[in-house]
């Protein structure tokens, strides 16, 4: 086990001895992982290895599944996010999430981005809201493409644009961490390239955790990579090290395509 790799950077989130059960089935076993601030951490591994489950532990989305039980410690800035006095609504406002399939709400582009600021009361008037929406769309690299049709429905955009809209929606409430669950798996190569470029820019402001099935993508966008297999972290290190000189044979086999 090499999951205790020393991270030289500041640590934003830390998972210690995390176990997750779906009913009787154990999905994650004793996961220890540190997530560095303002870096991109990639979670790779074969399907069903628990990487999405782990990601969903980080913003307590697993709470919505009745049969799911999480134990162990997950902390954000040294505070346990599973402790009783943590408000899950506030937590999720601090930890944004982008899903595998673009899921814009059946509202206008503007209202999609304004959704978060509105429910959290981040703005006092329409003008401030306009600024937040514009800023978020700008950061998501979508503003130029949609500036003339902010009132058309979000679902009218192309798949890649929808995904960037979802990213804009997530960053509109200024989260500290953004979780991305295979954000490019439903996109074509060009849209994927745009989203990857965006992820690279976003890491200056946000801490990003990304689940991906695409080895090249992990190599391209991330600074740290964790390799999951059968509910365990096999290896965690700097991305460069994982892809050039992995310690574990299973990691080597997976990234060279020999299994998984």
């Amino acid at each position, binding site marked *: 086990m090499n999951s205790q790799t020393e991270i030289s950077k500041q640590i934003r989130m830390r998972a210690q001895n995390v176990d997750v059960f779906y009913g009787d089935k154990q999905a994650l076993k004793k996961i220890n992982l540190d997530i560095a601030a303002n870096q991109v951490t990639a979670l790779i591994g074969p399907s069903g290895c628990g990487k999405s489950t782990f990601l969903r532990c980080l913003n307590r989305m697993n709470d919505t599944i009745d049969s799911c039980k999480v134990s162990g410690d997950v902390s954000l800035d040294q505070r346990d996010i599973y402790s009783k006095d943590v408000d899950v609504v506030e937590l*999720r*406002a601090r930890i*944004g999430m982008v*899903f595998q399939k673009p*899921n814009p709400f059946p509202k206008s582009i503007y209202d999609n981005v304004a*959704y*978060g600021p509105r*429910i959290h009361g981040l703005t006092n008037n329409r003008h401030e809201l306009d600024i937040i929406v514009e800023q978020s769309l700008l950061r998501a690299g979508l503003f130029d493409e949609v500036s003339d049709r902010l009132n058309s429905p979000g679902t009218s955009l192309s798949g890649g644009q929808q995904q960037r809209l979802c990213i804009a929606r997530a960053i509109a409430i200024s989260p500290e961490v953004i979780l991305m669950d295979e954000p490019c798996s439903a996109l074509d190569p060009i849209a994927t390239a745009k989203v990857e470029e965006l992820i690279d820019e976003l890491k200056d402001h946000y801490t990003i955790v990304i689940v991906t099935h695409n080895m090249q993508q992990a190599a391209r966008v991330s600074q740290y990579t964790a390799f999951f297999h059968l509910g365990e972290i096999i290896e965690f290190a700097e991305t460069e090290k994982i892809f050039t000189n992995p310690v574990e044979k299973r990691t080597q086999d997976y990234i060279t395509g020999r299994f998984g």
Partner: protein
Amino acid sequence: MQLTILIITTLILCAIGFFVGRRRAVSISRQKTKKLHSMPNFHGSYVAMWCAIPAFIIIVLWLALEQQILNALLLAHFGSSIADLDSVQIELLINDVKNIASGSSFGRGKSSDILLNAADHYESLQLTFRASVLAAGLSFSIASFLWAWKRISPTLKARNYVEFAVKVFLFICSTIAIITTVGIVLSVLFESIRFFGQISFWDFLFGSHWSPQTAIRDDQVGSSGSFGAIPLFTGTLTITIVAMLVALPIGLFSAIYMAEFASPRFRKTVKPILEILAGIPTVVYGFFAVLTIAPAIRGFGTELGLTVASESALAAGIVMGIMIIPFVSSLSDDAIVAVPKSLREGSLALGSTHSETIKKVVIPAALPGIVAACLLAISRAIGETMIVVMAAGLAANLTANPLNSVTTVTVQIVTLLVGDQEFDSAKTLAAFALGLVLFVSTLGLNIVALYVSRRYREQYD
């Protein structure tokens, strides 16, 4: 009798045809080296099909043409002796003969010899006709059976023919449903046109006084016959509004609870129970309205110092609302459940609460379905008869006060057509005009509902 014989023999022939055809196909495939184009079962079905088709055509023609042919033959029997009768008299004459022949007429003893003669002639005509049709049907069937049986060979594309026949059969079935609908509409339409020949269309649609009694004698009192349907429309509208005020909130909120909050176990038990409400006969709801709700409303109204009619629009509306709750809740529930989980998760991940998610994401996404459910429920309420007959009364009051007794379009149709009626008076024909109005309005609502649910449905895959 002959018809039954023909149907049964055809069915037997079909069964025999299937096995014989199949056997022949199997034995051919054994003898010859060449492979059969179709499986033996298709050859069997092919032969059976050719047994059924001629018989089916003969039966249809028989049912359609028997009366016309027999009538023509009967008239030929009378020959020139009836040349100076008009068409109504001829019709009467034919009816007389038929009644005597079938023995349902009391007048056999008193009838003239000519008629008796004709009746006997008619009976023998009928017998010969049916026997010959039976013979024709059977011989056609057997002939085409033999022909199809002969044709069985490795190159016969039996599968293609059978598949085609299946397609045609299914097409005919679906057309029957459509043709029936068209037939119903036309029959209502023609009677309505007759009604509007007597009463002006505008007087009917915009008149404010409804009193559909037509005078039998000239000197009768109070039988002017006034067909202004506005009181009926307002009555229907009042009751429908009351019903929707009851059904919409309760149905929608219970759907939201079922779809979003209820545990699977609760949902599994309660949802079927709610749907049982939809299976209760409306007459039973009517009892409930008359015996429980109406007196309760009346008592409550009296306490408040209001005058409440013992049969009030409110009572009927409330009970009708209860009746359509399962309708609204079941359809809304489907619409809410159909909203993809990804939208809920997207909203929750932005830090919104469960109820914010429902209010701002789930309900807007499900809105087209919910609107369609409501429109269908409204058209259900407009067409509902039994509850209002029992609970709302017959008085055609022009009022918007739900505490008064009102009457609806459906109730008036029922009362106009109950009992012995002559079918050419304005009174009875008014029922058809009302039926037409009812049909057009519910059809319009259903079309709007379909349009809304299709046009505004988000395409989630």
